[in-house]
């Protein structure tokens, strides 16, 4: 005995178009979610800061590495001078963020200091991002591979891919 099954062409067409529409929607949503990610980039930044009578000079190589969903690591390597004294900076910060109305709300979750990091002074550490601090930031595109990071006070650095 053989059985023949009648396939409804309209149903097949409906399912096909439905799948295409859903695929496009999912793809577009994914693209949109990926659009406002913190970019992977690096920068060299020299800072001169006066705190009372103390003058700090800081030279940092900053690397921003996105990891996972709305999380990124900041690698800081360089040194900071307090008058004649010089200290090494070598640490990694783990941060998460939310993007809302053009602003990134960034929270430092972890501050991992490496062995060669020699900044012990509290005032020196105040010059660097610290755990649980929240930063409000804008990220704007300078060129195809460069972005400027600015807090609500002033631009901080231009980084490149």
């Amino acid at each position, binding site marked *: 005995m053989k059985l023949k099954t009648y396939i409804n062409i309209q149903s097949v067409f409906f399912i096909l178009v439905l799948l295409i*529409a859903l695929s496009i929607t999912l793809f577009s949503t994914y693209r949109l979610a990926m659009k406002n990610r913190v970019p992977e980039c690096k920068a*060299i930044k020299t800072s*001169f*800061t006066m705190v009372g009578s103390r003058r700090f000079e800081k030279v940092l190589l900053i690397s921003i590495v996105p990891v996972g969903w709305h999380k990124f690591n900041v690698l800081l390597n360089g040194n900071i001078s307090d008058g004649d004294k010089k200290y090494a900076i070598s640490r990694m910060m783990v941060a998460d963020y939310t993007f809302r109305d053009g602003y990134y709300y960034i929270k430092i979750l972890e501050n991992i200091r490496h062995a060669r990091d020699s900044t012990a002074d509290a005032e020196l550490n105040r010059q660097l991002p610290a755990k649980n601090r929240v930063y409000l930031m804008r990220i704007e*595109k300078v060129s195809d591979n460069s972005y400027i990071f600015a807090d609500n006070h002033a631009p901080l650095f231009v980084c490149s891919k």
Partner: protein
Amino acid sequence: MGVNQFIAQGIMRYIINNNIKYHEDRSELISLYDDIPPIVLTATLNRLLSALVRNNNLVLSRETLLMQVWEVHGQVASGNNLNNTISMLRKMFASLGEEEIIVTLPRQGFMFCAKQLNTIDDESSLDDKPVPAIAVQPPPSKRGWLKRKILLAVLSVVAVLTLAWAMFSPEHASITYKSIGVVDKCDIRAIGTYHLVKQAYVNLPGIAADIKRFGLDCSLPATIYYYSSSTLHNNRDIYNSVSFVAYCPAGLKKNPVSECENFYETKDVH
């Protein structure tokens, strides 16, 4: 399905909704479950049912049915004949538990709507046991199709809109700046992320001095992104004033800005 195709097909036996066996060759409708005698169809009823079953879930116009069932067989075709014959078939199916298997579509024709329809083309299967049926996607009703079409239209519109949004919205906002002059071969651009720069407060010789102080080379083409809180007001004694310089040497045409060096200076002035 046209007349020729209808004629070309052999005589078939069908299991309708796993409930009724239709012997086209014997002109009989047999219940698979109830112990009742087979319903014998007249030649006209048999031809009409055959045409309907062979076009399951397809609309057959009145004209097609009149031609296939009556005219081709040399009988007089009339709308009343068709209506009466359809009515008789409906009653037969209703007596076998299939109430609405023949659907009238106003101004279109008739449609046979079996949810499951299997053909048997092997004599060995002609015992009266029910045949395990393969599930066939039942055709949705007219209202169901309307719902499906609306759903499809809405989803398509959502898909197109999200695709357009995803494709055309910028990944990041572009930098806001104002060109405020040149120092040697350096193009100085005042950054305006948060504030508009007042040209009157721009101190180009002061910027040139900063460039020199930071040891930057403007003998080669470069772009300098500059910001100073002093460009926002004329109060030079503001507490915690900030200057920022990003020195970006000119790169290749493809990538006009190469890696930049950043300088950030705060002056704790009281």
